[in-house]
């Protein structure tokens, strides 16, 4: 029987020596996991605050949108929108930004859904309650770092040492019969990936080969009899009375162990990747697809992946010009997102796991409905997010009905969903869906039981629904 992840972590918290032996019983020898029992979540974080106002646009009520965004040059022309058809839950038609062809295609196949007006909340909040200060609101609203933390931890009223991806991994790690970490990141180790028990494994994106996605140079293969390698590992065990030394040793120790695990995987091909031309997000998702393709060899039944793309903080130059609003920074980013997500979905179809992998987006916040004077937008609050996968009940909007009785916010500055008042109100929508609810829906799907849900989302009890129903 293989060493479990929990045993490995317990060992590695104390003494690395035994843990270092874990890889001996690891990996290719371990075929216990069955592909039928496999589920993975893939988080795509859009760093900087994605302007939801220009990704999902009212088609039927286009004039409201046009009146707000055209004077500043940011309005996407109605004729260029990718039409959704009548969205069942709303009873009206919308349009995707013209860059989102891949996601629009999957929307048509029922594999993509939109979750509307999500954001950090301490408790359910509406405009009156917000303006009269009778509810607690998230710490430092409209700040990047605070809102990113809140999106990633689900805790909006104070600091949290862990994220909800990591805590979900804590709860599902025992599904796996391996020491390979349940959470893998292609974009560093943000707090989303850090659990109370689990720590993320960070690896390199494609085109780096999967079997070189973690590598240590300069040792024979296998390195076990090299005295320098042996002593390098032994040094990870000494000076444990120094906190930072201990912490660094944990990271390096796990890296050395998993380096040996990945070395044996080879470099599987996962069509339809690579994208032409290669993109930052595409390369991350390609490597994720490769890891998924060797899930049986790695002994994985449940996995969480993290990747990210920056550049969404479009305070200026969000569009090229008022006369060319469908090109520019935001259009380019959305094209990259859409193409990479579509290629990834197609890869999961090829791998036969399309219904077992759910991909979702997060972002700092949405942006002001009323733009600024630099063809840009400033920080706002509630945002729309995409969910993609074979288990997604797609072609639909999800959320919690707000001021207008639908899940979609009222698009009016100084209106019933705006934090701002007066003639210079910017339109920062107060979320109707808490991150907790969005995350809990995803975590429940991958296997976090109802009794564990409050451990992963400590404030979930404050919000009505813990499952928004967008996953089968």
């Amino acid at each position: 029987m293989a060493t479990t992840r929990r045993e490995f972590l317990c060992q590695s918290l104390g003494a690395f020596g035994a843990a270092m032996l874990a890889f001996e019983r690891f990996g290719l020898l371990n075929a216990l996991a069955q592909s039928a029992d496999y589920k993975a979540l893939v988080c795509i974080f859009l760093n900087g605050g994605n302007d939801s106002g220009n990704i999902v646009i009212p088609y039927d009520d286009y004039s409201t949108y046009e009146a707000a965004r055209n004077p500043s040059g940011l309005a996407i022309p109605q004729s260029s929108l990718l039409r959704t058809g009548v969205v069942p839950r709303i009873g009206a038609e919308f349009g995707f930004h013209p860059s989102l062809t891949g996601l629009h295609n999957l929307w048509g196949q029922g594999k993509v859904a939109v979750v509307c007006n999500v954001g950090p909340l301490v408790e359910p909040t509406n405009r009156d309650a917000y303006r009269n200060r009778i509810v607690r609101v998230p710490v430092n609203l409209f700040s990047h770092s605070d809102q990113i933390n809140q999106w990633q931890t689900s805790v909006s009223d104070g600091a949290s040492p862990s994220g909800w991806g990591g805590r979900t991994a804590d709860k599902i790690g025992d599904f796996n019969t391996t020491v390979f970490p349940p959470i893998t990141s292609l974009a560093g180790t943000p707090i989303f990936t850090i659990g109370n028990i689990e720590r993320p494994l960070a690896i390199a994106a494609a085109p780096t080969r999967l079997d070189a996605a973690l590598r240590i140079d300069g040792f024979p293969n296998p390195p076990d009899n090299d005295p320098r390698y042996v002593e390098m590992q032994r040094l990870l065990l000494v000076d444990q009375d120094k906190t930072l030394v201990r912490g660094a040793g944990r990271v390096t120790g796990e890296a050395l162990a998993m380096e040996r695990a990945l070395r044996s995987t080879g470099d599987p091909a996962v069509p339809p990747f690579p994208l032409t031309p290669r993109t930052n997000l595409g390369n991350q998702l390609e490597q994720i697809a490769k890891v998924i393709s060797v899930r049986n060899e790695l002994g994985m039944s449940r996995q969480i992946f993290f990747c990210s793309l920056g550049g969404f903080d479009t305070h200026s130059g969000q569009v090229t010009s008022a006369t060319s609003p469908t090109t520019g920074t935001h259009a380019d980013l959305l094209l990259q997102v859409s193409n990479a997500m579509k290629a990834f979905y197609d890869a999961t179809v090829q791998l036969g796991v399309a219904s077992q992998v759910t991909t979702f987006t997060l972002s700092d916040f949405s942006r002001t409905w009323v733009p600024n004077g630099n063809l840009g937008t400033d920080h706002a609050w509630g945002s729309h997010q995409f969910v993609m996968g074979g288990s997604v009940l797609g072609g639909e909007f999800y959320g919690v009905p707000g001021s207008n009785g639908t899940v979609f916010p009222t698009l009016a500055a100084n209106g019933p969903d705006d934090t701002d008042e007066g003639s210079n109100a910017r339109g920062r929508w107060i979320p109707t869906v808490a991150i907790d609810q969005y995350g809990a829906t995803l975590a429940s799907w991958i296997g976090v039981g109802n009794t564990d849900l409050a451990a992963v989302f400590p404030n979930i009890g404050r919000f009505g629904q813990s499952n928004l129903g967008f996953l089968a």
Partner: protein
Amino acid sequence: MKTKLSSYRPVFFLSFLLSLAFICSTARLIEAQPSSASADTVRFLEQATFGPSQSLIAHVQQVGIEAYLDEQLRAPMTDYPDLEFWPQTRPASCTGDCQRDNYTYYQLQRHFFTNALYGQDQLRQRVAFALGQILVTSQVDVPLPSWMRGYQQLLYSSAFGNFRQLLYDVTLNPTMGRFLDMLNNRCQRRTPPDVNVCRNGLTAQPNENYAREILQLFSIGTFLLNQDGTRQLDGNGNPIPTYDQKIVEEFARVFTGWILATALPGPSGIGGTVPNYRDPMRMRVSGGFEDYHDKGPKTLLNGFELPGGQSQTQELNVAIDNIAFNPNVAPFISKQLIQHLVTSNPSPAYVTRIASVFASNSNSPTQLYDVVRAILLDTEARGDFIDPATQPNYGKLREPVQSITNLLRAFEATSDGVLNSLNVGGSVFGSADMSQDVFNAPSVFSFYPPTARVPGENALGPQFGIFSSLTSLRRANFANRVIFLTIPAAPPNRPIGTSIDLAPWDPLANNPEQLIEALNQLLLHGAMSAEMGQSILTAVTSIPASPASNLRSRVRTAIYLIATSSQYQVQR
């Protein structure tokens, strides 16, 4: 363009280190002697420079730490290369070296490293590097190196200066203006224009970007602080915000009306004019008045009322004063400088002492030097403050740049400074590959969040935000490449590569204990534990002393094990 690589001649002070090794080593490897003057000199140089070199250790050992700090205040400033200003769109004729030097950060990044490796103004550079991670601009939105060069020069020249002046200069710097959108931030006037009426409902509003980040990141932070750096709490035990969204909007209105200075002539052979990223931004004046500026009254921090109708420059000065002399600035900036130089978890008393120096020198032209000097001479930086029994959370994880430069300086490396991005032998291990892409942080929030914790521990470790399984091994691979091989020359973009000469160390390898002790003094300021020494000794003595070529293997093995250890990656 002119480039200037410091001429370099390796000077070895091995004999000095050897004498230390003899003094310190007995029949067995002995415990660290952190309080000895020589060890403290090395530790000081880890905090104050890009790494102790053998020659600099000897120098500071001779003159003393305080005299060295005096020297550093007066040391001539190293420059970045004087890059020509080119058009934003690259002319088709500019290819090859022209494209590399004027449309990539190659020369800037390379000089950052050669300055760090060989510059004499080490403290100035180290402080500028810290300031550059607090008052951040990034290639992300500053595509041309000539545009970034002026900002980095400003940080060099301001590193020992006055903080209020720095904040003012940064605010009007065109690179910052571009990066955080104060450049061209404007109010939208009604038609016909009314001098005093600016905002106009649904048409565009002032840009909030610079207003928010100057408050959140460059000066006061989001919560009211005590002078010891801890948060003030209200009656319910909750932290108290320093500002709200309304204040951000008010500052956004202050920061309207600035545009680039008059265009500069284009480069020779190209002609025309190019955007002026050399001079401070200027007011836009049209029709006889500052037509982009919002002249209405505004309410700033602490309820300060800015009456309407003042000139744009007047308003800016008052607003910068309103920010820079806020009581939060001293603990907010002081604590971060301590964290960048000395330790991630300074005691409240340490922060108080430094904040006091910051505040009492707020009008001094050498305020930041005074602050840095106090940080480095504090009892929490010097002497015996490193006992793990009483100070387990002491120290800081070296960031990638320092991981690289400390190793190279320790062995007086020969390097072309091409160290930011490296791909050699199918392995990548430059600073950028370790998540610290110099001058190209992912955002104004820099490379790592100040709130990042040490994995599995209840202690702050900001640099752990970019220390992962992936980057940890890349640090080791950099060490492997430099210690066992070289980063080979590969002209034109890697003219001489990077190498260290270990020949002077070979004789010492006949006596592994002396070898290890000399390395302990050089790399770990004598703080190596007996257990660590024993482990390294085991690996070194597994290599027979003969033939003579084995001596080098012993040296390399010992250096590799120290350089890749957590004990070395953590500056403590």
